[in-house]
């Protein structure tokens, strides 16, 4: 169904990648519906919380404190987790993380693994790597199973299949599970997934998970979920391998009193998600008896080193920013060319790529600031976007012949024009005449030639008004005199 490419190294730039989406009314309808539902639910539950801003301040301060003292807290986590029977591994990049995980699965003689939804594993593109090594990976989150069976890509970090509607799910399930009489009732579709996965939960002895939080004080790991597939994967297998970014640590168990309150409300508009599991190393007689944590750097330390960009790592992956983003709500997730879409993806992905790829993403924003208003850990996404835009332009400028690029010449001309009122007014006059040829009866410009097409290929432009503000002001002064 989808031709989305979520590898930032090969994905097309944002303004090219959005085109198929903008021309797909069904996809846009699905995305708009889902984001509207979550927005409404979140707004209702945030409004009932009298201390919402205080919770955000605390969550933001805790996360920043962790990042500033990350070394100390990670070492503490490692020590306590190891003492409780866990094994801690360190991976500098995606290659190392994948190799460590494959090696652990080989030690278990695993030919299959069940998996809890984890964005970190998508970041390191774990599934295709394991499949190529002969290990069958079974996703167990309902949305992830829809995507896996439908050979689709995720378009959201909390509800990854939000771009797929019930009749499309019915088609995927009836085809891949061999259920001819399946209806498109979500209840029946969910029942089909329950039945399909139960056998795998009971049979496959090796599981892979991500983590929402690591607790330094105790060496514990917390996973937040809704369906219970997480609990299945954390409880039934003999071995669990958890892959997690180094930034996910919290100092103390008690910090969850803040994080759990802000996370569920922001992510799904619930007072609390149905299930949150916390485990500490290995508990004799209860759950997996072999437990490995893979701590992943993958450029997080480079983000940490830049004071303004550091806050990117405060993220707790609630997805509120994308649900409220006017750009994401039009384009959905695939155009971002990464498993991390939306405003957080627009700042995280290019940094994970050290600006070598995905450098178009910081421009995929109107800088309206809706994201920072809803962010439960107060990441100033527009500030980071602007800083990364400067990076992208600086890199582009250094490339050969860029000085003669039409865009740069245009901007230099604009610089001169905007600084001198008389040239500006003359240019306005010419502009109005020039653009009138392209302006439709409805006052919108839908197509422009040359450099102007860079704007109009993705969005319409308001035609210039018949009268400028200056002219209106002068006329008004004359009238009232």
């Amino acid at each position, binding site marked *: 169904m989808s031709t989305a490419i979520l590898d930032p190294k090969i994905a097309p730039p944002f303004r090219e990648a959005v085109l198929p989406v903008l021309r797909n009314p069904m996809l846009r309808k699905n995305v708009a519906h889902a984001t509207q*539902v979550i927005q409404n639910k979140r707004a209702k539950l945030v409004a009932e919380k009298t201390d919402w801003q*205080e919770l955000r301040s605390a969550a933001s*301060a805790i996360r920043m404190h962790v990042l500033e003292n990350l*070394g100390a807290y990670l070492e503490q986590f490692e020590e306590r987790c190891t003492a409780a029977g866990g094994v801690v591994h360190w991976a500098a990049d995606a290659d*190392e993380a994948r190799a460590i995980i494959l090696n652990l699965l080989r030690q278990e003689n695993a030919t299959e693994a069940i998996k809890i939804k984890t964005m970190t594993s998508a970041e390191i593109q774990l599934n295709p790597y394991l499949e190529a090594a002969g290990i069958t990976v079974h996703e167990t989150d309902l949305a992830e199973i829809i995507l896996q069976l439908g050979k689709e890509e995720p378009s959201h970090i909390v509800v990854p299949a939000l771009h797929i509607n019930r009749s499309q799910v019915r088609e995927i399930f009836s085809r891949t599970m061999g259920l001819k009489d399946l209806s498109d009732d979500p209840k029946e579709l969910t029942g089909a997934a329950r039945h399909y996965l139960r056998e795998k939960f009971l049979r496959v002895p090796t599981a892979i998970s991500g983590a929402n939080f690591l607790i330094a004080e105790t060496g514990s790991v917390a996973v937040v979920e809704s369906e219970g597939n997480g609990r299945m994967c954390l409880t039934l297998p003999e071995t669990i391998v958890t892959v997690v970014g180094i930034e996910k640590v919290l100092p103390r168990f008690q910090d969850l009193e803040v994080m759990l309150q802000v996370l569920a409300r922001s992510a799904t508009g619930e007072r609390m998600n149905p299930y949150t599991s916390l485990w500490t190393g290995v508990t004799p007689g209860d759950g997996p008896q072999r437990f490995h944590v893979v701590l992943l750097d993958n450029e997080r330390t480079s983000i940490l080193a830049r004071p303004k960009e550091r806050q990117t790592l405060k993220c707790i992956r609630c997805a509120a920013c994308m649900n409220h983003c006017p750009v994401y709500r039009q384009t959905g997730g695939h155009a971002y060319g990464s498993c991390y879409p939306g405003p957080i993806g627009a700042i995280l992905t290019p940094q994970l790529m050290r600006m070598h790829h995905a450098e178009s993403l910081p421009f995929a924003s109107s800088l309206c600031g809706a994201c920072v208003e809803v962010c439960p850990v107060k990441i100033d996404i527009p500030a980071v976007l602007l800083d990364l835009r400067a990076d992208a332009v600086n890199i582009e400028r250094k490339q050969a012949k860029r000085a003669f690029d039409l865009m740069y010449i245009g901007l230099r001309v604009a610089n001169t024009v905007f600084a001198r009122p008389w040239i500006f007014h003359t240019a306005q006059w010419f502009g109005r005449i020039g653009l009138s040829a392209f302006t439709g009866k409805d006052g919108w410009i839908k197509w422009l030639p040359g450099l102007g097409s860079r704007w109009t290929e993705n969005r319409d432009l308001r035609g210039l008004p018949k009268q400028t503000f200056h002219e209106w002001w002068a006329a008004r002064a004359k009238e009232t005199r």
Partner: protein
Amino acid sequence: MNASVETRARILGRIRSATERVAKAPTQLADAYAALPRTYVRRGQKSNESKLELLIERLREYDAEVVECLEAGLASSIAAQLAASGKLVFVAPAGLPKEWLVSGFDWKIDHGLPAAEIELVEGVVTGASCAIADSGTIVLHHSESEGRRVITLLPDWHLCILRASQVVETLPEYFDRFSKPPALVTWVSGPSATADIEMTRIKGVHGPRFLHVILVRDETQDA
């Protein structure tokens, strides 16, 4: 594992140099943590009675069934719930009080039952460690009376017995009550659910589809 030791040192080195201007000295870390702003609501303002009412309301919003009883009526309340479920085979944690194992049903006591056997059981009866009224959350620490995690996961029907004294109003109150962190915790807020298909909430993907709660009132508690 030389490569691994080297990677660890390299990552920690990168973290140290990235944060050298802002990281606190080890002796000051605890003070810096203690100084973090925590001006959010810690303690609820409700009376004991309205706190319990809030919990019941929240649980019912999740489609959980809630009944109340007095300590003296607990065994008969359990019997009534089990009978109404229409189920016969129940698993119980090893430490469940004997008087809760009401007669007339087939009880499997979990002394490490294999998962395949628990899968065949129709329901489970357990205690709990705490409940949080504000979010309708039941907290299991998987002690002797709450059982291993698997027994409250595979059966489709869960009866949880909760004492009024175990109910707190806010999440921070829970953390105040258990300042020594437990090794295993499951926070349960209603039955398993998903909204992955068109944001339509569907009850019961995995895990118990039916959650029943008996709230045991203790007459000596404050009114």
